[in-house]
């Protein structure tokens, strides 16, 4: 039995041709971009992700919106993602000396529940990919505070081959905090500034991202060479 099977190979099956998903340049498929073309994904994974583009959020009545903005500014939840050197100052920030829980802020371990992502310092390409994913998974009005000068203009890694030089080309940034390292007081001042912006209704990075989505994607794909994730992973 066995050697028979071994002898004659079953000719019924045609050898499978591996079809790797071709990834066209962004501008090619971008013109008819009603829905996203999740290129770079394996075929069986494509239906795991929705193809909806991010939409501009509707605002309600001004009075209600003001109250909601106040509530948002009163309880900011930080995504506990130490992207660089700046993460070393996130720990003193939650301890007794500079206690951000006074301001109603607390670190959350999951991007679903976080409103604020703190870019701590330089961002390497590998980290940028994760930052984009985390940022897109965050819900609602979401805010970005970029700490350290490396996130602003590359800092002292201005000629490094692996760090992006300005983070605001890849995700919208609300508040910058300069310095290397910035003192925790400076970070606290940045958070307070962000609160003022939120109360004034000026921190609309989510809508900006939805508006200039194509531009952001183009910038991200210029630096992230192996794009093996969906284009918008809500």
């Amino acid at each position, binding site marked *: 039995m066995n050697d028979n099977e071994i002898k004659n190979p079953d000719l019924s099956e045609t050898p499978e041709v591996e079809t790797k998903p071709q990834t066209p340049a962004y501008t090619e498929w971008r013109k008819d971009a009603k829905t996203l073309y999740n290129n770079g994904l394996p075929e069986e994974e494509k239906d795991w992700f929705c193809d909806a583009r991010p939409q501009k959020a509707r605002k309600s009545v001004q009075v209600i919106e003001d109250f909601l903005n106040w509530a948002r500014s009163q309880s900011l939840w930080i995504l506990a993602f130490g992207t660089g*050197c700046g993460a070393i100052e996130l720990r003193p920030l*939650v301890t007794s000396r500079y206690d951000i829980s006074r301001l109603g802020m607390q670190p959350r371990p999951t991007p679903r529940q976080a409103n604020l992502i703190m870019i701590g310092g330089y961002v390497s390409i590998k980290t940028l990919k994760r930052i984009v994913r985390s940022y897109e998974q965050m819900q609602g009005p979401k805010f970005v505070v970029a700490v350290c000068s490396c996130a602003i203009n590359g800092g002292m890694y201005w000629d490094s081959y692996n760090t992006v030089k300005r983070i605001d080309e890849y995700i919208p940034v609300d508040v910058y905090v300069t310095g290397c*390292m910035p003192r925790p007081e400076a970070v606290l001042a940045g958070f307070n500034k962000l609160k003022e912006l939120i109360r004034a209704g000026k921190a609309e990075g989510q809508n900006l991202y939805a508006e200039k989505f194509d531009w952001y994607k183009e910038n991200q794909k210029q630096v992230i060479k192996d794009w093996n994730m969906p284009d918008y992973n809500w």
Partner: protein
Amino acid sequence: MESLYPPIVNGKAVYDLNSQKYLRVWQGPQHPGVTGNMSLELDICGDQVIKCNTHVGYLHRGFEKLMERRRYINCFPIVCRICVPEPDTNEYLFAAAMEDLMGLEIPEKALWLRTLDLELSRLASFLMHLGGQSGAFGMGTVAQWTIAYRDYVLDLFEELSGARIYHMYMTPGGVRGDLPDGWIAHARKVLDGAAKLLDEIRHVMLNNVLFKQRAVGLGVITLDMVDRYGIVGPNARCTGLKRDVRKDQPYLVYDQLNFDVETETAGDAYSRTLIRWRETHQSISLCHQILDKMPKTGAVHVTLPNVLHLKVPAGQTYVRAESTRGEYGYFMVSDGSEYPRKLTVRGPSYTHAMALLEDLLVGVNIADVAGLMVSLHTYPPEIER
């Protein structure tokens, strides 16, 4: 009935992820249980890890490339960025490597000040680690205490060098400045407070039943693993080996200070924590000794020629120092020009977090992954530089 766990064929677990029995979870880079910005790719069966891949490189900045195109004195500000929680070791080693190549003799007082700076940074890093160790087992209180107290040590650095985290204090040829007025009294106060805090930690954390229950017998490092994996520092000392660069090859003034190498024999996470707790006391006592024996007056640095055009004679050297994680080394090659030819950093976390962790994590309950990883005391920035 066949066992739930996959069969082990010559050291590797053979299993199929698509059979619905095994789960692949990623811990990190965005995970509060993972120290710093690195990630573990865990294949778990039930709640037991059967395979682990460590992924680093989220913090890669290409230091060694950047230093090749910077002058020596321009390299100096960026070396301390290699290890964020304990930058002074990098500063000292870079300066020491330069002085070794140039044959510089730095004044007596600078040696003492450098030792003081190193010990203070060891103290700060140890405090941070003890907090992380307790936090990894869910005791956030001790983490809050220690990390909050670390700020007072950082205040000392700030008075000394003007910076909290990155204090470029140990320049090539000495240190930047002498101790400010009233610094010694302030330092002694902070050190005494740290000693008090450590006693509280012993009561709350080290003598805690649940902490022992979780840490004892977790991630045992055996004696034969030490050389095979290149384990250094407390991770090697927890197996009973007396290996401490400060004793073996005394640098600076460590031969004039009296301390002994702390060792344990169990080799598990609890003994590592004990060793680090004792070494924190040791750092405090060393700081006191330095403040006692230090020469009160004297020059603190030699004046170099125009540092922008500083030429270092050709040659290659390797200098090492004992950081909180163990042996930290700089390998510097100069070709006689204004730019370093090659500068390689040997971070102790390199082998601990890559080769060792991947093998220690196999068979560990997923609840203990964070505790085991923290107990190895790894800092990702010095892995990928």
